[in-house]
């Protein structure tokens, strides 16, 4: 509170630059991001009666219902090797994708006070919801893999690829959060649109089924989906054997690269869109 601590040079007049996606220094960005994400995580799970159990219960219950329905009522999946094990991991992964993008979409709008009343690196907000969802995903995957091992899947060297695939999914979900968060501020209909798209993605991605069960007539649609390579590769990495990898599923390397290039484009576009849109977000809210 004393004037002695103020150095003259730091008080030189400097131009006010207005809001931005990143703020001033990387250190401050990291501090804010971590504090925000860890607080979100703790608030979500630690203060509820069963805490983190809820985060785990959702994918497991979804898995249980879908598995019972597909396997025992429709009789589907009997020919797919390790159907239950892969289904469980897939559902954990997709539920992460859905939650991360849904919460990311509202990251700016739901923290309206912060956005409108403080100078705050805007990108912290969607990144922090994404980070919170990622923390949950990691815990869920640990439990998921323990269960998969108990169910009888044996570890293979190709499991080493899984962290890379999970990272790709996290990056894709984060990029979409950036895109959606700014789009949602501009147009609230985005929430409805995204609900429809993410439902379509659930069925259009080889989550419940394996890629070779998709008939030729619709396979090209599934193969355009940016999520497809991740889930095809996860299945291959988990069980190997006759399960096709992405190149086999697509037929050739260039065809397999189409959704990958699409994803990369989506990531770059989302990032650009956020950086461009972030300064005006406070006024649009």
């Amino acid at each position, binding site marked *: *509170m004393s004037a002695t601590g103020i150095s003259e040079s*730091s008080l030189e007049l400097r*131009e*006010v630059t207005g809001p931005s996606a990143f703020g001033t220094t990387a250190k401050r960005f990291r501090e804010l991001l971590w*504090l*925000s994400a860890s607080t979100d995580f703790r608030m979500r799970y630690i203060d509820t009666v069963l805490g983190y159990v809820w985060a785990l219960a959702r994918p497991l219950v979804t898995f249980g219902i879908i598995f019972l329905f597909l396997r025992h009522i429709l009789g589907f999946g009997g020919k797919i090797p390790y159907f239950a094990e892969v289904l469980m991991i897939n559902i954990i992964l997709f539920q992460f994708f859905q939650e991360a993008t849904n919460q990311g979409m509202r990251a700016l709008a739901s923290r309206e006070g912060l956005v409108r*009343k403080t100078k705050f690196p805007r990108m912290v907000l969607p990144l922090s919801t994404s980070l919170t969802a990622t923390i949950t995903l990691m815990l869920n995957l640990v439990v998921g893999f323990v269960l998969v091992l108990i169910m009888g899947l044996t570890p293979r060297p190709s499991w080493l690829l899984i962290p890379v695939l999970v990272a790709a999914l996290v990056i894709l979900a984060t990029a979409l959060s950036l895109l959606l968060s700014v789009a949602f501020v501009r147009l609230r209909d985005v929430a409805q649109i995204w609900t429809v798209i993410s439902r379509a993605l659930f069925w259009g991605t080889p989550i419940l089924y394996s890629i070779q069960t998709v008939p030729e007539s619709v396979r090209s649609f599934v193969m355009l989906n940016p999520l497809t390579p991740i889930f095809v590769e996860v299945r291959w990495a988990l069980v190997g054997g006759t399960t096709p990898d992405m190149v086999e599923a697509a037929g050739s390397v260039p065809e397999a690269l189409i959704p990958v290039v699409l994803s990369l484009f989506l990531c770059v576009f989302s990032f650009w869109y956020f950086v461009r849109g972030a*300064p005006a977000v406070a006024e649009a809210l």
Partner: protein
Amino acid sequence: MSAPLSIEVRGVSKSFATGTTSWVPLKRLRHPAGRLSVLEDISFDVHRGEVFGIVGPNGAGKSTLLKLIAGIYQIDDGRIRVGGRIAPLIELGVGFRSELPARENILLNGVMMGLTPAEAKRRADSVIEFAELERFKDLKLKNYSSGMRGRLGFSIMTHVNADVLLVDEIMAVGDKAFRDKCRDVIAGMGAAGRTVVLVSHDMGSINRNCDRALLLHGHKIERMGSPEEVANGYLAVNSRRRLTAAVGGDGASDSAEVVAFGFADEGLEAEPTLSSRSPIDVEAVVELRRPLQSPVVQFTILDSGGRALFVAPPRPLQPGGDRVSGRFRVSARIENRLASGRFAVACRVIEPSIDGEEGGAVRSPGRWLAFAIDGADQLGSVISVDSEITVEPAKAEIDVAGIGVK
């Protein structure tokens, strides 16, 4: 002022997009996109160690100006430079999480205000102590009263090492004791070489806290200077708004208009000060755009709040005229029985309804002229009339009952 500059604002303008951003063409037609100007060509300086106030009526652009200085909004035009670190929070308690206890909110809010997490942790006890919330430090914020939240927010603000503090409506929170504490702390900050900018629509809080102030009105700086000067300007602005509301065009017809209205003595300035008891001489030109049924012109004396004090008897524009139109020059001399203060004289044209109903009358938009009366202080009187009071020593034998006093 010899102190170096802390905030330099030069030619700043800001407008916001209005209208819909809908993709539906019909909605776009109904609410066409436009720009709403909020600030136009604003320039001022704040010196280091000053407590500077920004006042103005609602919607004058005070908060927008603060947000531009804080870097929350982008500047359309012009330049703002600030010396030192700005506390990036312009309202107390923004970003508080009501599900978390005080200590964790101090950490969150402190980091947001620019502290490192370690610094925020170290200062938490001191923040709680300053806010006098030791007994409640483990209570979740949702159980805090709004005054307690305000105290906590203010306490955090005083514990971050910002060189420039920008605060919107700070005095809206807390009880009298808290407001006094705020005032002392803000004065102390100024003395310690920090710069404080306060925004309020309440002149009182600016008066109590600020060294200097500026008045924003109609997107521009209306006045800048000592809090007293600005307070006078603010009173005049408020009075103008009320007068316009009182005599302005609400429900008025455009069939008649007061084209010109002024004091008869052309040497008078815009808001003249008249001496007590000198008559009020005004002249008006009225125009009737279509023939009216026996129209009258009416003069009114109003106080600065827009309340009518005297309504002059209506004067027909053309006695006995049935269908009257054209231009008329009207002069009026009104006896001045007003006490010292601020007043206005208004003029308008009325076409009384044929069957005498009030609602059927046609009224033109009114015009008004503000003026002040200079006279001896008359203890809150509105009018000044002669009075004579005599006093003589009373003797016991005077018949008290004779003059009605028991």
